[in-house]
C-alpha cells in the first residue's frame, strides 16, 4: 500500500520525492472501518509481539536461566541498570514494570520500520508517542502531588533564595517547561525521529527503485546504485536511532517519575 501510494504520487513519468503522504493510510480493505489501518493493526501487533517475547522469557523464570530467559534478563538488566537506577535509585524495582513496558513496546514499534512487509515505525504517527508521554506525565504529576503534597509539589519546582526579580522570569519558565513543554518534547522527540527516519529511508529506497526499475536510464543508473547503498547505510543508522529513541524515552520517563517522587531542589 505504502509503495502504491508513493508510486501513485510519482506517476507523471517524473521522479517526485515522497512527502507526508507516506504516513497516510486508507482502511485495510475497501469498505472497512476507517480506524482499521496499517498503523493501528501493527501497533496492536507490536504490543502482542512484546508480550509474546517476554512471555517466552519470563513465564516460568528459573533460578538458573536458560534460553530466552537469558535474553530477557539482559533486557531487564539493561533497563534496570542503565535507565531506571541512575534516576530512581532505591525506587527502581517499583517502577521497573512501567519502564520495561515503555522501553520494549517503543523499541519494537520502532524496529517495525525496518521489518520487511511492515516497514513502518508506529511512533511516526504522533498519537502513539503522545499517548505514552501523557501516561508518563499523568504519573509524574500524580506522584508529585501524592508524595510532595498538592501545593508543595508546585512550590518545590521553584528554587528558593533567589532575588525577587529573578522569580518573575523563573516561575513562568519553570512551570512552562515542567508542565507543558516537557511532555510535549517527550512525545515529539520520539515522533520526529521516527518520522524523519522513515521519510529518509523511503526517499533513498524510492531513488533506487525509480532509477533502477521504474525508469532505468544509463545516466540514472549511478544515482540508483547510490540510492540503494545509502538506503542500506541509513537502515543500519536507523537501527541505532530506533534503539536510542526508545532508550531516551524510557530514560526521560524514569527522570520524570523521580521528579514526582522527590523534589529536585
Amino acid at each position, binding site marked *: 500500500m505504502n509503495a502504491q501510494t508513493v508510486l501513485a504520487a510519482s506517476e507523471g513519468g517524473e521522479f517526485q520525492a515522497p512527502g*507526508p*503522504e507516506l*504516513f*497516510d493510510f486508507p482502511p485495510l480493505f475497501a469498505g472497512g472501518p*476507517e*480506524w482499521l489501518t496499517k*498503523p*493501528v493493526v501493527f*501497533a*496492536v501487533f*507490536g*504490543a*502482542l509481539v*512484546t*508480550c509474546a517475547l*517476554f*512471555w517466552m*522469557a*519470563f*513465564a516460568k*523464570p*528459573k*533460578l538458573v536461566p536458560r534460553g530466552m530467559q537469558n535474553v*530477557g*534478563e539482559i533486557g*531487564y538488566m539493561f533497563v534496570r541498570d542503565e535507565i531506571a537506577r541512575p534516576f530512581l535509585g532505591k525506587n527502581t*524495582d517499583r517502577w*521497573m*514494570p*512501567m519502564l*520495561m*513496558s*515503555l522501553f*520494549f*513496546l517503543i523499541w519494537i514499534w520502532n524496529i517495525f520500520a525496518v521489518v520487511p512487509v511492515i516497514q513502518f515505525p508506529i511512533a*511516526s*504517527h*504522533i*498519537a*502513539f508517542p*503522545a*499517548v*505514552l508521554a501523557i*501516561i508518563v506525565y499523568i504519573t509524574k504529576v500524580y506522584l508529585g502531588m501524592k508524595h510532595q503534597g498538592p501545593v508543595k509539589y508546585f512550590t518545590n519546582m521553584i528554587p528558593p533564595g533567589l532575588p525577587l526579580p529573578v522569580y518573575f522570569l523563573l516561575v513562568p519558565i519553570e512551570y512552562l517547561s515542567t508542565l507543558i513543554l516537557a511532555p510535549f518534547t517527550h512525545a515529539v522527540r520520539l*515522533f520526529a525521529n521516527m*518520522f524523519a527516519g522513515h521519510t529518509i529511508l523511503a526517499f533513498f529506497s524510492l531513488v533506487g527503485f525509480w532509477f533502477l526499475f521504474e525508469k532505468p536510464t544509463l545516466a540514472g543508473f549511478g544515482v540508483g546504485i547510490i540510492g540503494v547503498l545509502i538506503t542500506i547505510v541509513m537502515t543500519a543508522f536507523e537501527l541505532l536511532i530506533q534503539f536510542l529513541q526508545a532508550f531516551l524515552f524510557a530514560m526521560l520517563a524514569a527522570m520524570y517519575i523521580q521528579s514526582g517522587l522527590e523534589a529536585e531542589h
Partner: protein
Amino acid sequence: MIGAASVLAAEENNPLVPHAYELVVGVFSFLVVMIVLGKILTPRLQKVLEERTQAIEGGLERAEQAQKEAQQVLDQHKAQQKAAAVEASNERRKAEEQGAQIIAQAKEQAQVEARRIVDNAKAQIEAERQQALQSLRAEIGALSVELAGRVVGESLEDSARQSRVVDRFLEELEERARTQEQITS
C-alpha cells in the same frame, strides 16, 4: 513552529495532529503490554532475581558455616589426640614405675626367703652336728674305755678316774680337731 503547524493543519492529514482512534489504540496497546509484561511477568522475574541473590548469599554463608564447623572438628580432633598422647605417656610411666616396684619387691622377698632358707639350713646343720658330736662323744668314750680296758687289763676300774682320763683325752682330741680346722680354713 506554530506557524508551520497551523499551515499544516490546513491540510487534511497533519502529522502533528493525532487521530482519535489511534489514541485509543495506543492506550490499549500500552495497557496490554503493561498488564502482561509489567504486572505479570516483571514481578515474576523480580522474585526469581531476589531468590537468586538469596540463594547465592545463602550458599556463601553455608559454605562459610561448613568451613567453620570443619575447623572446629579438626581442632577438637587435635586436642583429643594430644590428650590421648599425654594419657598414653602417663600410663606408660605409671606401668614402668609399677614394674620396677614389682621387681624390687620380688627381689626383696626372694632375698628374705633365701636368707631364711640359709638360716634354717645352718641351724639344722648345727643341730645335727651337735647331735652327731654328742652321740660320737658317748660312743667314742665307750669305745675308748673298752679299748683301754683291753689294753691295760682290768686295772682301771675306778670309774671316776676312768671318766677323767676319757674327758681329758676327748678334749685333746677336740683341740686337735679345732687346730686342724683353723689351718684348713
